[in-house]
């Protein structure tokens, strides 16, 4: 027999209340650890998801919005950049690469990025990790799409499948639960359904229905671009970033479907092919830029110079993605503090419950304490036994909380990936985990002080009287 065995046997003898108390502590610890873990993982994921773009240019209202929209596909940009401005920006500086993008469409809630083949060649979804094709090839012609791994997995679509894009980014960015048949696979050739479009556009009565004409509408005024069929030509391997929710399409095809919409509204005939597109149709919502990185040259200074020059242009917004991600986390830091304070509050309430459970158990264990005293246990040792018992509850709770946190954080990361596409890899920082565990044990031991004093003061003689 040892003191520890005595304590453990005592805890096991009250297994139900011990389990509940440990569970309360475990939940609080798990909550705290999960929040810390997800916070760090989220920051890592955002920083990683910036990819290898040095700058983002858009017509958004602020640099943060430009990054959230342009690189994290939060919302369709509210304004476009004219073709002449795009040419001016891309030719005014010897960029390593400059990739035009157009956002605003979606497929089953997944954002569609209309761009050039450069996006899948030069842009890296995570720094140093270029795109890898699981099957198929890059976009080459209008009306071709490449599905990122998450989209392919969620939709089950593959090479050769055909689909319609939806105008708008989908409800909250989440895939709709039951996609309309019309916007999924279609059995026709890729490209414009010229006959149908022409027929619909030439029907003068439909013009009164404002933008309804020829479209299958979705929620929030979204509609399906059912005039044009897109074909899947490639599927990407997972990149472990939010970019895995992308549908990448060739930009001329996207210009074409929007040109149909605009001309329909203006009462003009729809273009018959991409060759009939006008300068006004070739709208860009963003440009991803990378400055040249060469050995022996001050890349940071080059980037700063390019950034400063672009910033002088009031018609555009230029943003450094990494700076904006840092700013974003600076903004949400206070929210983190609130959540961590909440976790701390829950931990405190768990510790108080330890105190109450132990306090009540002291009432029930007065006879046992008296017997221990009869058997020669000094009062101070009784004090130590109860404090250790309390600390052990804290330790068991902290360990169980650690396991719960790993499970909980993985679950939360899974939900986050499904809901927002942000891929986080939760991991508990060992230093934080040890600190929280040590703090929990110390708090639990502190919670045992009052019950221990009660046990210390338990009168022996009156608790040895025979039971009635």
């Amino acid at each position, binding site marked *: 027999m040892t003191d520890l065995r005595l304590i453990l046997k005592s805890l096991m003898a009250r297994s139900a209340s011990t389990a509940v108390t440990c569970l309360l502590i475990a939940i609080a610890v798990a909550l705290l650890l999960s929040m810390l873990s997800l916070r760090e993982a989220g920051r890592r994921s955002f920083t990683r998801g910036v990819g290898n773009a040095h700058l983002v240019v858009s017509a958004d209202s602020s640099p943060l919005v430009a990054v959230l929209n342009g690189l994290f596909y939060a919302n369709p940009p509210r304004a476009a950049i004219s073709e002449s401005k795009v040419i001016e920006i891309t030719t005014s500086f010897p960029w390593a690469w400059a990739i035009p993008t157009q956002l605003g469409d979606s497929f089953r809630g997944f954002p569609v990025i209309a761009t050039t083949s450069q996006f899948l060649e030069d842009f890296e979804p995570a720094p140093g990790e270029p795109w890898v094709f699981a099957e198929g090839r890059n976009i080459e012609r209008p009306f071709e799409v490449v599905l990122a791994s998450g989209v392919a997995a969620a939709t089950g679509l593959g090479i050769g499948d055909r689909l319609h894009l939806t105008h708008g980014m989908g409800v909250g960015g989440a895939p709709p639960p039951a996609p309309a048949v019309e916007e999924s696979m279609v059995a026709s050739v890729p490209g414009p359904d010229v006959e149908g479009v022409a027929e619909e556009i030439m029907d003068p009565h439909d013009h009164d229905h404002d933008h309804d004409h020829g479209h299958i509408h979705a929620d929030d005024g979204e509609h399906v671009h059912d005039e044009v069929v897109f074909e899947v030509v490639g599927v990407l391997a997972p990149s472990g970033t939010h970019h895995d929710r992308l549908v990448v399409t060739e930009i001329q095809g996207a210009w074409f479907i929007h040109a149909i919409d605009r001309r329909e509204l203006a009462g003009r005939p729809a273009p018959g092919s991409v060759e009939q597109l006008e300068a006004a149709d070739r709208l860009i919502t963003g440009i991803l830029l990378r400055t040249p990185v060469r050995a022996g040259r001050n890349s940071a200074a080059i980037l700063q110079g390019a950034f400063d020059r672009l910033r002088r242009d009031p018609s555009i917004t230029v943003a450094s993605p990494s700076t904006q991600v840092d700013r974003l986390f600076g903004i949400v830091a206070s929210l983190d503090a609130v959540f961590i304070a909440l976790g701390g509050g829950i931990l405190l309430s768990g510790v108080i419950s330890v105190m109450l459970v132990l306090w009540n158990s002291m009432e029930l264990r007065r006879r046992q304490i008296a017997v221990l005293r009869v058997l020669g246990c*000094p009062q101070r040792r009784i004090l130590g036994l109860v404090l250790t018992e309390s600390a052990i509850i804290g330790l068991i709770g902290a360990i169980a909380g650690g396991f719960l946190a790993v499970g909980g954080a993985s679950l939360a990361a899974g939900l986050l990936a499904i809901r927002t596409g942000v891929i986080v890899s939760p991991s508990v920082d060992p230093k934080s985990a040890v600190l929280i565990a040590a703090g929990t044990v110390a708090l639990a031991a502190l919670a045992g002080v009052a019950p221990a004093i009660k046990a210390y003061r338990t009168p022996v*003689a009156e608790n*040895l009287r025979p039971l009635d």
Partner: protein
Amino acid sequence: MISDMKSVLEIRGLRFVRPEGFSIDIPEFILSEGEQVLLAGPSGCGKSTLLLLAAGLLDADSGEIQLAGKSMADARGGRRDAIRANRVGMVFQTHHLLPGFTARENVSVPLLFGGVKPAEHAAVADALLARLGISDPTARVDRLSVGQQQRVAIARALAADPAVVFADEPTAALDPENAAKAVALLQEVCRERHAALLLTSHDPGLESAFSRVVRFDEIAQTSGAVG
């Protein structure tokens, strides 16, 4: 009758007053080494209080209690607990075993507080339990019969090789036949281990088993009710 043997318990000029008014005065009581004494008296007369005072679990208001040569008045706190752990064994009417613990664990607890190395606990406990007829030391005490529980309680009282065993009405819950058997067993093992025995009982049927029977009112004056 005081023998020539050394005393294991000496009480002189003891006065104890409870806040509610009950008081005991014991001018003198001596228990010799290895002696077995029945302290007889009706229920509620103060016999249990005397045992608690002798074991240092209650503080006397005045007087002297020497237990195995140590003054309980001088020994306070941990020192008094150490004397009790090493020199005193106690058996109660309701056994007061630790529920959820095995027989071996119950017998090991006084060894823990008596400073015996944990590695030796099982061997000591098992030998004692075997001597008392408990064949399975790993049995949980709450699953044993009342008679077996009492034998575990006796083993626990003797585990730390005490100089004296105080048994407070240990047969009160037993029928006369089993009471006689239990007392005989207790006397036997105390004799084997050279421990004195002071057993309180209100049962006159046990008097024949003891060579020395002391009536409580012969050694103590009380006033008020025990409460």
